[in-house]
């Protein structure tokens, strides 16, 4: 869910809340108006009936001339008829029944006269009354009583007027009526109320829909943000929520499992998954209060609140303990005791980054150094350190290209059998405005992914093409990354070079693993070889390449990574690895280059192992040609 969508959801909630808040008083108000109108109308009719009944009761008493009303009406049919006529004059669509009853000696109410037009009661007929207490109240007190009856659809009343003779209530003059007009008023009010109800219901339906959408989005987010294997947040979470995080409050670290492929290859992927699950649990336990994120396969991003530490040294020590903790831990899986190591890169100055992404990049640089430095170590990136202060910006690199301050230093690659220089590796440098020489570590990571990078690569190609045109006695290798050789601009530049020069130029391609498309790389390498370039795979054994890929790409050289070569005199595994790679490469006609030939011991060991070429300070430092 984007922030925009969040804002829309919030707006929807507010609008609905306002609509509901406005509708409720209207709805409640309509009920109040309805009750008030009903009350008023009933009260008006009751008042009218009351006055009319007063007149009729007075008239009756006069007509009776002192006779008891019950006896008189029982015995005098004419009188009954006259009174019935008078009562019938009161009957209207609203006043439905008008009649006189009396209470006999058993306490039953019986009809004396009935002026109603329908459902007439006969003389002496019993009438079972409802709400008898009220009727008896009229008899007892001699005062008028009104019984109101109302329900959802209509309203009515019974008006009871006692006819008192000689201080005794002898009969009751009764009218049953309903208030018909209330229906019409109620209809109009119902219309308003129903319209309000419909709008409230619609608003609630929208609200429910919005809640449903919100919950659905949250569920989708959860599935995107939570890693099923470890239960940690994923990189998606960082990508989405990172913009809202105050990342300056954290130390940013990347923890990467060294040679994790070996765990999968040796014990199986299920064991690998188990190790990752356990490692995630271990990190969560040790890093309470920190954000622990599974950033990629075996790489974890840690956002550790700064407040817990007094200084940067303490942070580095803390991560050293984490590294040691992982190293000493045994991960048991189906009887196997698995041990792993981790490399950790920390960005100690995340607050200096413009974005979380940039801060992570800082940690990534430190992690890269930890890997290059032999793994199983902690490296820190500190923008405040002297080295970093001197980093070159993208603008600096652009200026250097435009003002011709890009140069190359050349390190010889020596044929270990003959001792002759086979070719030179061109190592890019920038001459700073202060005359200082900057190696790629000062700028390359920062320009990757920008348009300046391609210009930079083209400049390196141009410089070396010029060199090879001038110096026909040498051969040079230049460094490219996989994306360079599928970049049409770079490819176009390489195609445009004359064949004579191309035959003396080697292309060293780094980080073959993790390439965007293996087939595209393979195709490009094929084309470049047909053009006359020779291809060298750089950094082999640094954990990024594999022999299957190499053979499929039909390359000319393979350069074994310095991390393997540096301890070849002492480490049997490194020796065995180098020997195996060398003999394999001989079989498939690939020449092997060993880098990091720092001393005579390494050189001797390489010669013993039959390695074809060597490169390193012992054989020749990088220099200008």
């Amino acid at each position, binding site marked *: 869910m984007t922030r925009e969508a969040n804002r829309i959801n919030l707006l929807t909630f507010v609008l609905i809340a306002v609509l509901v808040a406005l509708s409720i008083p209207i709805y409640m108000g309509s009920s109040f108006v309805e009750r008030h109108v009903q009350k008023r109308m009933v009260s008006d009719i009751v008042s009218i009936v009351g006055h009319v009944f007063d007149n009729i009761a007075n008239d009756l008493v006069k007509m009776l001339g002192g006779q008891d009303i019950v006896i008189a009406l029982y015995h005098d049919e004419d009188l009954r008829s006259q009174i019935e006529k008078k009562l019938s004059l009161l009957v209207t669509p609203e006043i439905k029944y008008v009649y006189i009853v009396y209470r006999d000696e058993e306490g039953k109410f019986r009809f004396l006269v009935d002026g109603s037009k329908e*459902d007439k009661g006969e003389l002496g007929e019993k*009438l079972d009354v409802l709400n008898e207490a009220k009727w008896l109240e009229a008899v007892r007190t001699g005062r008028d009583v009104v019984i109101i009856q109302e329900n959802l659809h209509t309203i009515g009343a019974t008006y009871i007027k006692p006819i008192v003779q000689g201080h005794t209530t002898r009969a009751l003059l009764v009218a049953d009526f309903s208030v018909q007009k209330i229906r019409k008023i109620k209809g109009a009010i119902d219309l308003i109320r129903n319209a309000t109800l419909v709008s409230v219901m619609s608003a609630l339906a929208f609200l429910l829909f919005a809640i449903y959408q919100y919950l659905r989005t949250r569920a989708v987010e959860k599935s995107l943000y939570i890693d099923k294997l470890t239960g940690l947040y994923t990189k998606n979470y960082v990508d989405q929520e990172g913009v809202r995080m105050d990342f300056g409050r954290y130390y940013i670290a990347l923890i990467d499992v060294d040679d994790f492929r070996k765990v999968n290859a040796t014990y199986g992927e299920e064991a690998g998954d188990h190790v990752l699950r356990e490692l995630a649990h271990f990190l969560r336990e040790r890093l309470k209060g920190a954000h622990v994120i599974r950033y990629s396969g075996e790489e974890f991003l840690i956002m550790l609140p700064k407040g817990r530490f007094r200084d940067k040294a303490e942070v580095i020590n803390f991560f050293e303990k984490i590294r040691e903790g992982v190293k000493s831990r045994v991960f048991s899986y189906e009887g196997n005791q698995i041990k792993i190591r981790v490399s950790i890169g920390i960005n100690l100055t995340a607050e200096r980054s413009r974005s979380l992404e940039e801060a992570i990049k800082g940690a990534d640089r430190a992690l890269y150094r930890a890997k290059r430095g032999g793994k199983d170590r902690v490296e820190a990136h500190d923008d405040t350190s002297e080295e970093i202060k001197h980093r070159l910006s993208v603008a600096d690199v652009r200026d250097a290209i435009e003002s011709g301050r890009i140069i190359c230093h050349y390190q010889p690659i020596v044929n270990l059998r003959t001792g002759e220089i086979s070719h030179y590796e061109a190592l890019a440098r920038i001459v700073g405005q202060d005359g200082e020489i900057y190696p790629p570590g000062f700028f390359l990571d920062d320009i990757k992914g920008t348009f300046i990078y391609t210009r930079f690569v083209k400049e390196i190609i141009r410089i070396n093409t010029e060199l090879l045109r001038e110096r026909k006695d040498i051969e040079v290798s230049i460094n490219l990354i996989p994306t360079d050789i599928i970049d049409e601009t770079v490819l176009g530049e390489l195609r445009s070079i004359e064949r004579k020069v191309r035959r003396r130029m080697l292309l060293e391609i780094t980080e073959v693993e993790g390439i965007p498309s293996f087939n595209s790389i393979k195709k490009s390498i094929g084309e470049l070889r047909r053009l006359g370039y020779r291809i060298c795979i750089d950094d082999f054994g640094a954990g990024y390449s594999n022999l299957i890929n190499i053979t499929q790409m039909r390359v000319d050289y393979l350069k074994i990574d310095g991390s393997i070569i540096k301890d070849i005199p002492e480490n049997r595994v490194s020796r065995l690895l180098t020997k195996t790679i060398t003999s394999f490469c001989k079989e498939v006609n690939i020449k092997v280059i060993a880098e990091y030939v720092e001393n005579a011991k390494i050189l001797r060991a390489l010669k013993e192992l039959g390695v074809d070429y060597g490169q390193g300070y012992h054989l020749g430092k990088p220099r200008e040609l």
Partner: protein
Amino acid sequence: MKNLLSFLTLILLTFVPAHPQIDVSYSKPEELEVKILEKLFQDILGKERVRVFVIGDKKEHYRRGIEDYSDNLHLVTNCGGADIVLLAGQISSIPEDCLKKPLFSTRRENISKFRGCLGAFYWKKGRPNIVLIKERLEERGIKMPKEYRRYIESEGRATELRRGFRI
């Protein structure tokens, strides 16, 4: 007629229970009618389950009501199998075999029309009314509970009242 019905409904819905002496609960006027008849028949006959044969121009209305709302009244198709005969609405004549059975009406007029009619439950000015004839109950040896006292009328008294002898 429409007005009358709405008026009846009004009064009915207002007074729940409609008859303070006869304790029945209901949610519709039709249900009230059936519940009162059920209670009356059970007390008249002194049995829980009562077989009823319905005749008269309103027989379909009452049959439907009994089917819908009563668990204890069971409709039968002839008088032979009935415990009581319900005269529903107007009726001109009653089959011979029905005259032996206790009759009960939904119209007050049927009480004077048929000698075997024990009483009636009917509507008077929107109010449910019950009349039970004392002598006819006694003839069949029926003794009603005290709660019915206010609904029991004597035939003799009715005559006296009409003549104005006893008021």
